[in-house]
């Protein structure tokens, strides 16, 4: 699960999490006691319809503002480690 969540967790810590999460999931299992036959899922508490914005260009953030929080910038790009190396590993 940690791998799927992209979290690099040390094995010892993983054991602790496993116990805590099992505990929570044990409690959450109470959901099974509720009869939900024929009930539709509710994803949002209020009825809302999709609202579209007018297709008009507005002010945008400058490149400088967009990059001010980037950990590594090279020119007009955000720098990342080699991606292609992934496919060989």
């Amino acid at each position, binding site marked *: *699960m940690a791998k799927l969540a992209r979290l690099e967790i040390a094995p010892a810590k993983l054991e602790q*999490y496993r116990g805590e999460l099992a505990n929570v999931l044990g*409690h959450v299992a109470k*959901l099974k006691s509720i009869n939900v036959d024929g009930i539709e899922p509710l994803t949002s*508490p209020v009825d809302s319809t999709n609202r579209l*914005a007018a297709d008009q260009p507005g002010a945008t953030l400058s490149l400088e503002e967009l990059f001010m*929080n980037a950990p590594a910038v090279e020119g007009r790009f*955000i720098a990342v480690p080699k991606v292609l190396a992934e496919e060989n590993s």
Partner: protein
Amino acid sequence: MSAPFTDAVSIGEAVRSGATTAEQVTKEFLSRAQIANASLNAFHEIFESEAMEAARAVDAKVKAGKNPGPLAGVPMAVKDNLATKVGRTTCSSKMLEHYRSPFTATCVERLQAAGAVVIGKTNMDEFAMGSSTEHCAWGPVKNPWDTTRVPGGSSGGSAAAAAAGLCGFSLGSDTGGSIRQPASLCGCVGFKPTYGRVSRYGLVAFGSSLDQVGPLTRSVRDAALTYQVMAGLDDRDSTTADLAVEDPMKDLETPIAGLRVGVPKQYLSDANDAEVNAYVNEALQRLQKLGATLVEVDLPLTDIGISTYYVIAPAEASGNLARFDGIRYGHRAALKTGESLDTLYSRSRAEGFGPEVQRRIMLGTYVLSSGYYDAYYGRALRVRRLIKAEFDNAFTKCDVIAGPASPSPAFKFGGMNDPLQMYLCDVYTVNTNIAGLPAISLPIGFAKDGPHSLPIGIHLQAPAFADAKLLRAARMVEKLFPDLVRQAPHFS
């Protein structure tokens, strides 16, 4: 004027009338905040020069005869998961330790336009996940009534700042009780408006279908006024409701004739602290004497709320927090030569997120994973519809539903080491978010613990978009306790 003891409405009035200046008020509050912060840790950052500059701009408007707004010169503290151009927006997480927002949240902008002055950003449980503000990367926030106890959470810094009079009011966010529970534990008013009433633009998302921004204040009228300023449609948040906002100030002082107060038997459980039940009962008796009718309502799904919430909220969080990958912003881990992009993601996230956030991301990932999706997430969404229906049915018999905001007064630091035990504290508040209702917590009494008085709050819930009526009902309750101390004594 003794600024720290007055509420935001009275500060605004005094500044507009010229009885005092925004500069004077801001200076006083900045000084109080700086001194008290050494013992409370309510603020992560305090903005002295920016606040004074904003205050002078308010004074210039007053001098020029222009309308400075209803919150003229009122010092406001902002929870650190709301984006502000001034200072940093860290969500009390190492992940965002150095993050500076290029924009300001809509709710903050609207309050600033109404004259409020941002004096600082408040500490919180990391990414708003917690009920004690112990999960804060910048150290725990202390309860101003007893600094050996938690202020509640996740808006613990905002609650402590409002209760200790370090600001005129503060802003919090509420995903499962994160405004109302700390307000109850710190003895201030905490208001969570109807889902979709206040724009979430600029609020760092936790559970998008549950999150709502709201004020923490020292009076109900402050909650009403600040809500009025913030509420309404925002083009930048498509979930804001396209419905006119009822004026919450107009009839605030007029009691609701024939108010029907729903009392679910599930809320005054024996598992609650005895003093909590005693004070809630006292408030109900007083309301009845005033002419309100107490109506017994049945909410049998109360207990299942925690299970439902701790599936839906982590599920939404695991998606929302996937954006923190060490690439565009936030913490980036150092890699050794040859390590992959995937390692960069995993290590950055492991180093940047604290344990509670990691737990909830894994929980959310699990309940959304194929094979478990239907059993957990799908089922929780179906139970969610049942919970909402249960409230809808109860509100055919009553105008508001009353109960405790928290099963107990503030607990000691480290008093809830097991995550599940902490989650169970939210039993009376999570269903409000699951159903998208407005709710408010306000102080009604104190539990005694040796030399300490620990605030106890009542929790009122109302139907969706009945925010104005809910505030009126809360004002009725507030008037029933005229002599209640509303300021933590050590900070007066």
